[in-house]
């Protein structure tokens, strides 16, 4: 029995190490000066840690740059924030209301709509880029943050609807009946009863949507226009913009900086995430 426990922890630690290693390598590399990277192994720890690469990634390297490229990632960080917050609220909000309407109310063709909507989860957004561009253009939103937000909502709604609909399907029918007898109509039932119930699943949907939206590159590049370029696009410019020897430490620092918000979300809400999944996604 004791041997079993040792093996158990051994396996867990090995797995944890393997999953963490690439991230640790990134962090360690980002702290090394180039001289160390050139000579040493990627697995070696930095002997002389420095945050210079992080500074360079965040503020840009204006000693060599000409023009606007020397801004680093700092300027696009706020753009990303301005995209993510409304896109997150709207996509999760629309998904929760849609999922609720599909699950809790008798709407003719609700199942058909749900099945049809699910297909949206599987369509690669790149494939339908042109018609989407035309659509957004006709709405007069192209090249604006609003347009980008709209696009994120369109591509996020299938997923969030599925999460919420499957969760709300598990809510006992009696509860809905009780609320209707109590006189709660569509919105009060949602606001006072269903939404508070769905907090765990709301958490999961928010975390996943946040990750997807924050990490998006293609939609930001296409629909953001000149002013709406998110951090991932800036990262691409930064990583693709060095010459000669690649400055791996700056690349890695920039990558870490870009990943930091999502990383923080996962670190801070890991427990919430697991609980939310337990509350909803599994029973689906």
């Amino acid at each position, binding site marked *: 029995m004791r041997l079993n426990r040792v093996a158990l*922890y051994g*396996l867990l630690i090995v*797995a*944890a190490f393997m*999953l*963490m290693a*690439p*991230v640790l*390598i990134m962090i360690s590399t980002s702290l090394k000066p180039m001289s160390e990277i050139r000579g040493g*192994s*990627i*697995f070696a720890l930095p002997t002389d840690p420095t945050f210079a690469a992080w500074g360079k990634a965040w503020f840009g390297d204006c000693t060599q740059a000409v023009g606007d490229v020397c801004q680093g990632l700092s300027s696009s960080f706020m753009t990303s924030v301005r995209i993510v917050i409304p896109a997150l609220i709207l996509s999760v909000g629309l998904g929760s209301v*849609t999922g609720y*309407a*599909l699950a809790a*109310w*008798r*709407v003719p063709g*609700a*199942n*058909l*709509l749900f*099945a*049809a*909507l*699910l*297909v*949206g*989860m*599987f*369509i*690669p957004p790149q*494939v*339908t*880029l*042109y018609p*989407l561009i035309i659509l957004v253009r006709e709405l007069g939103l192209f090249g604006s943050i609003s347009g980008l937000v709209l696009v994120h909502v*369109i591509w996020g709604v299938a997923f969030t609807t599925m999460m919420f609909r499957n969760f709300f*399907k598990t809510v006992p029918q009696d509860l809905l009946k009780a609320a209707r007898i109590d*006189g709660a*109509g569509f919105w009060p039932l949602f606001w006072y009863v269903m939404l508070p119930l769905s907090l765990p699943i709301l958490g999961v949907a928010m975390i996943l949507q946040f990750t997807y939206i924050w*990490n998006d*590159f*293609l939609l930001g590049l296409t629909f953001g226009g000149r002013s709406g370029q998110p951090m*991932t696009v800036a*990262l*691409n410019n930064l990583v693709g913009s060095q010459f000669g020897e690649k400055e*791996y430490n700056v690349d890695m620092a920039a*990558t870490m900086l*870009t*990943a930091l918000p*999502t*990383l923080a979300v*996962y670190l801070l809400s*890991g427990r919430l*995430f697991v609980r939310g*999944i*337990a509350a909803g996604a*599994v*029973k689906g």
Partner: protein
Amino acid sequence: MVEPAHLAARRQHPDRRWWRPDWTARVALIPALIITIVCFYGFIVWTFIISLTRSRLLPVYNFTGFDQYARLFANERWWTSMQNLAIHGCLFIGGCVVIGYGLAILIDRGVRGEGLFRTMFMMPLSMSFIVTGVIWQWVMNPTLGLQEAVRDLGWVTFEFNWIVRQDRSIYTLAIAGIWQQVGLCMALFLAGLRNVDPNIWKASRVDGIPVWRVYLHIITPMMRTVFFTVFILMSAIVMKAFDLVVALTGGGPGFSSDLPARFVVDHILNRQELGMGAAGAFVLLCTVLAVISPYIYFELRKARGAH
């Protein structure tokens, strides 16, 4: 009771049938309905229409029948990418299921520091596919990464050069993909394991069944829906796989690790082959439908059974 509340209630609610809540529900579904019809199916139809034309850089509507499909099916790279989709799909989903389930079981055995392990397992999930690709490209690069590091340690014949080998590069996609998504699978499985009735464990201990047998023969069959959920979520990722290929292998060496989504995007955006790209997209979407139709059928049947 003190006062006849029902009278008051009735006074406040005259006949309000025009504003019945189930009508509100219908109204609330309109945005989703529009998105579904216009953005999903409308765009699919549009894609199909474009696939019947000679469109190159931009959509034009001079129809040529199924020429683009003929060209597509004569294209070696397309078949490679479809074959890769199958390989990658099996490896990635299989890997996520097996490893994710394994990790969930390990954690479910009641370990200390469960939260810490969980968090560490889920950390890669926060990384974008682009970042995942960049990291792994580096780790798997034979002259920079793991292979070189191990050789430096003295094991000079060590080989891990899949990313530069045409016959192996597709596997590197699965490795990086599994690394990124296994945490989500683990969380789903763990949640499922936690839903298992504890009495089952008591019963199996009374019966003296070894733990591994309980998992294999009793718990695993009970987790059907979780397996299903994982399968669906991971399939969605496989079908859309684009960023990861771009960042990790760029589809190479050659086009040995190309996937349909990247093929399509490459032809639409870079190759001035909108028509053929659309044909590829349509074939891809048909594949998607074939894969998920059991799921949709299941969802619908489940919903009908709820009456």
